[in-house]
């Protein structure tokens, strides 16, 4: 690698790389990020390499390992160019056929194409798959084209052009002006205007100044930062260097949670390669601007995603938040002015610099510009990462892109914004999603987690889940959060265990108020959101738990019992054989009975029964077991 000493040398390099590319040369791209890897992508990769050898295609077909394209549900995903044929759920055993049919004979392997479950239609190209059709992929798009371990791939697509422009054609003032005009808001949670944050760091008199990337992504249910870091690390790094130049910083940190080992690996490689090319380090591109970056691995604490806590963690101490009379943008890391932005925020910067603020503001809603990546998960058919222009409705996201609810169940709520967010019920599904609209519903955009819940999800239990989560993750520094959450957790646990009392709901509301008003940081201040939104929209479920000791979703273990309907039981022993605690008595021809004293309510029998004979009962007693003489049954029906 040679060091680049001017913008023209960067352009030269780009031309050289592009000249070597042959768009007509067949190429297989394969996602090897965490999701697809868990589904066997590495075996698929190996199989391709072996098969190329066997069928004499070595050197004639390129194979590219890329980052996440978001449709993790149907991974491992393979796309074949130049025809743009997308195959899903590819296993190593499918590879010989792909090679001999598609690569050698230009035939399509029909069974690996995406099939629309509703219409039965097959989609050949990635962009024809409904999951992708309705998306607006600005940030995620290049994940398909870039091998994250090769800076040349990024440069070929115009990478570091924005940096070069920022350093040589713009001044820090002009960059700040573009960021201001773009109306970009922070993608990590609060939606705070990025310009304002940068401006206060820039104006702060003290030096040195620090710029930091927040990839703590502690919100359960959010994984877009992971996908960007793993899939296109240079786009984030480029944004960071531009930010540093704009505010006059020479040192940056990338805070990544250690649960994301591949993100750490790819980012470290990106840093090394950028440094080798002179795009990072001393005298970047010969501009005289110096900037170095270090990666800091988080050690597993949710609260460390909070700005002041994250900074203390980088200092090597316990990541606890502090009161913020003075913002971290003025007194942050080692008490110096520090900018902290989310991965996705930085990834937007090169786009804004390249295309201009005016272009950016055309995308999105009045108050929220650009796109947002959402992590669509839970009980929805197509789970994965979804990037859309701000303002798309929840309904479109869940039903058009997400393909509706799994197993034909009924939608109940969508949880937006992680543990600080809230539950949104069906009547608000047509709300356009942006920072301000979600807030009105008592939820937040957060980092963009959207967890879909169906009729089988108990809203009280979900509220308990979040309060339990936050109580565990509370650092314990301030009383409203530490003690308040502990009490709220106790009350909610009582309610889902059938020990709820009159007055519990009022107590929960009081705790919520106190925590909101007096907690030190956002964790405590927003901790009550899941509780408050479920109380607002699903009060009837609380009532059923407290007054009738009944769980309407049939989900809370202490409030339900499993029961085998003797009329439906086919006496096939399938449930009995699978019961992990041998609580089911029965034999072929003998109707099965669950011993309630042994049953751990694991639900295995419920899942296994092919005759819908196993039922859940809540709020009423289990019928007494059938007398022995009535338990004779001839297995007449064949299992479906």
């Amino acid at each position, binding site marked *: 690698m040679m060091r680049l000493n001017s913008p023209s040398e960067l352009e030269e390099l780009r031309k050289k790389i592009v000249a070597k590319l042959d768009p007509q040369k067949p190429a297989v791209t394969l996602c090897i990020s*965490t*999701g697809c*890897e*868990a*589904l066997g992508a590495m075996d698929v990769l190996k199989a391709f390499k072996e098969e190329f050898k066997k069928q004499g295609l070595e050197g004639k077909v390129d194979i590219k390992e890329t980052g996440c394209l978001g*449709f*993790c*549900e149907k991974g491992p995903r393979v796309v074949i160019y130049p025809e743009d044929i997308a195959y899903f759920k590819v296993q190593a055993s499918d590879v010989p056929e792909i090679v001999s049919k598609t690569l050698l004979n230009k035939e399509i392997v029909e069974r690996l194409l995406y099939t629309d479950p509703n219409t039965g239609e097959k989609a050949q190209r990635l962009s024809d798959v409904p999951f992708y059709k309705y998306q607006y992929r600005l940030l995620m798009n290049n994940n398909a084209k870039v091998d994250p371990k090769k800076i040349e791939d990024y440069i070929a697509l115009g990478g570091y052009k924005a940096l070069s422009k920022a350093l040589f054609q713009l001044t820090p003032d002009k960059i700040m002006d573009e960021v201001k005009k773009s109306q970009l808001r922070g993608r990590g949670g609060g939606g705070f205007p990025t310009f304002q944050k940068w401006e206060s760091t820039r104006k702060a008199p003290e030096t040195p100044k620090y710029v930091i990337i927040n990839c703590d*992504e*502690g*919100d*359960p*249910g*959010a*994984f877009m930062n*992971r996908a960007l870091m793993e899939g296109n690390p240079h786009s984030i790094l480029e944004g960071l260097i531009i930010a540093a130049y704009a505010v006059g910083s020479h040192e940056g940190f990338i805070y990544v949670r*250690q*649960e*994301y*080992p591949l993100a750490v690996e790819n980012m470290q490689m990106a840093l090394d390669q950028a440094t080798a090319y002179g795009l990072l380090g001393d005298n970047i591109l010969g501009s005289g601007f110096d900037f170095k970056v270090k990666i*800091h*691995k*988080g*050690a*597993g*604490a*949710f609260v460390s995603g909070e700005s002041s806590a994250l900074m203390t963690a*980088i*200092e*090597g*101490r*316990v*990541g606890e938040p502090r009161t913020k009379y003075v913002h971290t943008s003025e007194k942050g890391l*080692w008490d110096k002015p520090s900018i902290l932005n989310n991965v996705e925020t930085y990834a937007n910067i090169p786009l804004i610099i390249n295309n201009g603020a005016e272009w950016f503001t055309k995308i999105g809603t009045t108050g929220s510009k650009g796109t947002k990546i959402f*992590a669509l*998960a*839970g*009980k929805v058919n197509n*789970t*994965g990462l979804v990037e859309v222009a701000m303002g798309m409705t929840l309904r479109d996201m869940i039903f058009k892109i997400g393909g509706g609810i799994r197993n034909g169940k009924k939608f109940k709520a969508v*949880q937006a914004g992680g*543990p600080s967010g809230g539950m949104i019920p069906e009547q608000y599904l047509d709300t356009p999603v942006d920072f301000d609209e979600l807030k009105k519903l008592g939820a937040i955009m957060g980092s963009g*987690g959207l*967890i879909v*819940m169906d009729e089988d*999800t108990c809203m009280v239990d*979900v509220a308990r*889940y*979040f309060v339990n*989560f936050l109580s565990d*993750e509370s*650092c314990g520094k301030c009383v409203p959060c530490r003690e308040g959450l502990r009490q709220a957790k106790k009350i909610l646990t009582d309610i889902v265990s059938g020990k709820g009392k009159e007055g519990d709901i009022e107590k929960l509301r009081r705790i919520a108020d106190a925590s909101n008003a007096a907690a030190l940081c956002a964790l405590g201040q927003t901790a009550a959101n899941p509780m408050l939104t479920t109380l607002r929209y699903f009060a009837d479920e609380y009532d059923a738990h407290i007054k009738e000791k009944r769980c309407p979703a049939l989900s809370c273990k202490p409030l339900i019992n499993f029961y085998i309907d003797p009329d439906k039981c086919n006496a096939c022993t399938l449930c009995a054989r*699978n019961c*992990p*605690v041998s609580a089911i008595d029965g034999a072929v021809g003998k109707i099965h009975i669950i011993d309630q004293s042994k049953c*751990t309510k*694991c*639900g*295995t029998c419920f*899942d296994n029964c092919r005759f819908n004979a196993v039922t859940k009962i809540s709020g009423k007693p289990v019928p007494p077991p059938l007398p022995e003489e009535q338990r004779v049954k001839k297995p007449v029906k064949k299992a479906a």
Partner: protein
Amino acid sequence: MSIEQVDKIIDKYVNEKGVLIQLLLDIQRQLNWIPKEAIMRIHERLKIPVSEIYRVASFYTALSLKPRGRHLVRVCAGTACYVRGGPRILDSVELALKIKPGETTSDKNFSLETVNCLGCCALGPVVEIDGQYHGKLSPSTIGKLLVKYTEPEAKK
């Protein structure tokens, strides 16, 4: 554990500021836990108060003050996994290994932990064993998976 091993790790961080967490993560990765001797050694060499090292080591979930088993089973307790049956997976693992999260089996073969989110939400419920992710699990598949790690010459 040997002091030389710990010293080697500390060597990488001498004269740098804010290194404690990274240093402890390195020790954790190599030794699989943070022994008392390691804490004392860091204190001696980097002049960081023992109380501060202990506080950091006990605060973060990635750091363990007890020896971990040969295989680390981490059950994802994130929201997406939760609504897709994560708690049932945890129940099955607890039942199979006869330990609770935070504990290690008496033969030191398994340690069980829960983790807030592994970022594989589309594949929920997810369990990570020794860094390998396993998605779309059910109570019966997780049982079979664990057996692979219990055989005498279990491979990673």
